[in-house]
């Protein structure tokens, strides 16, 4: 290998190593204790039906949106706080689905946080004061990920909790036995 070639390879490798030192994102385990409130949600003001104009994006959105740690913390809370009970794992049930592209009260992270904090008519309870604001933002970050809105490098590659049963290719082959019904 000629020496210019070797030198350029070395430079390339050095660049790669330097880039690897970059932080993907910042993670603050300790949220700001004072002055952090969920978007002003004194009620219908945050709901914008019929395409009326939404207020500018909340400044804190960038701390949580596309943040792998927030999404993953929200994923844990989603199961622990029993969001699954009504929304299932995003597919909906008693509550509306969260994995489609339809957002009754807005799909921006601050709007979702407001929905969780305030509650919404027909069943969605208010979580203000039940969860901390940090947790509500984490949940909102995760809810956005259910419909694939955050970038793929921020979302978790595995589901919370145990995965399903053994794949069918691996299930043992039981010896067939005749049940009572078959004998009759």
């Amino acid at each position, binding site marked *: 290998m000629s020496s210019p070639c070797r030198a350029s390879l070395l430079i390339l490798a050095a660049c790669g190593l330097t880039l690897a030192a970059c932080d993907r994102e910042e993670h603050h*385990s*300790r*949220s700001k*204790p*004072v002055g*952090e409130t969920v978007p002003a949600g004194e009620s219908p003001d945050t709901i914008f039906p019929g395409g009326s104009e939404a207020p500018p994006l909340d400044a804190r959105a960038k701390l949580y949106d596309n943040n792998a740690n927030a999404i993953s913390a929200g994923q*844990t809370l989603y199961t*622990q*706080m029993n969001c699954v009970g009504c929304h299932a794992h995003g597919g909906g049930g008693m509550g509306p689905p969260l994995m489609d592209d339809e957002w009754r009260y807005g799909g921006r992270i601050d709007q979702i946080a407001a929905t969780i904090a305030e509650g919404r008519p027909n069943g969605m309870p208010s979580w203000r*004061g*039940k*969860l*901390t604001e*940090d*947790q509500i933002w984490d949940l909102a970050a995760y809810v956005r990920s259910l419909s694939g809105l955050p970038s793929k490098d921020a979302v978790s590659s595995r589901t919370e909790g*145990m995965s399903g049963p053994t794949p069918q290719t691996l299930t043992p082959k039981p010896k067939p036995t005749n049940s009572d019904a078959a004998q009759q």
Partner: protein
Amino acid sequence: MRLARRVTIIIPLLLGACSYQHYQSDFGNAAVEDSQFLTLFTIFLVVCGVMYLLVIGFLFLGIGRSGRAVEANVVETGRHHQSHPLMRTTLIGWTALIGIGLAALAIASFFADRSMAKAAANPKLSIKLTANQWWWDVQYNSDDPSKTMRTSNELHLPVGIPARITLVSNDVIHSFWVPSLAGKEDLIPGRQNDITLVPKRIGVFRGPCAEFCGVQHAHMALVVVVESYPDFIKWWDHQLQPAPQPTTPLALAGYKYVTTAQCSACHNIGGTPASGTVGPDLTHLASRKSLAAGTMPMSEGNLYGWVEDAQSLKPGVKMPTLAMDPDQLHAVVAYLETLK
């Protein structure tokens, strides 16, 4: 100078071997399991040590003899080299020694295994230990459902009674390890492992999580209290009681906050509307020896710090920083302190 340096190196090593009342020590010898392991360990150490010294001894003997050996093997005489009669005896003896050593190890581990299986076959107490990031959920089972009791981060065992501990995990792999009582046993999500312990000495022991399980792995310890059977039953009966009613106005204010605000979303307090299952049970929080899974001793000051800003004491813990008003904080701590 050199001697002084050696001494400074050796002293910390020796001090490291000390342990305050065997709080957390492999040589604690506080349960039947641990003494069996210790016996087994001693047998292995002696057998392997003797063999090692013999091999090294023969090696040095060989090195020392090598000069003469070459002379003796000179083929000039035309005779074949004949092995020394002593050599033959030594080889037979050596083989026999290896055989005896291996047999001793096999027999010792067989008996240790059998006696542990014997203890495990007849448990008198059934406990379910669930590991979470980063705390322990402890459930005492009983044939009488009204005696089934849940607590956290503190395991009480009666001395001399075989206790079967079922080990499960809620999130990632953890490992149950109380060095003074027994060896390690992993807690694996989706699996159920068992360990049976027969404590034989009254005392308080520490069990750190022994499998890296996330940022606060180092602050995930289980306090194990081995006590006499009457004390144990007394403790169990006390833990079955619901939380006492708050009497002072301050504690009452704390009760209202704890049962209506964020605390109750995760924590359970028996006899109150707080019935979360995500975090540790707080019914008799103030009766425990430590706070936040062995992170700090239970005290009023630590409670204040923990309730107000858990993230600064145990960064990454699932307990969020609550940012309460001072009035709320005073009230909540006053209430938590009544949970004896």
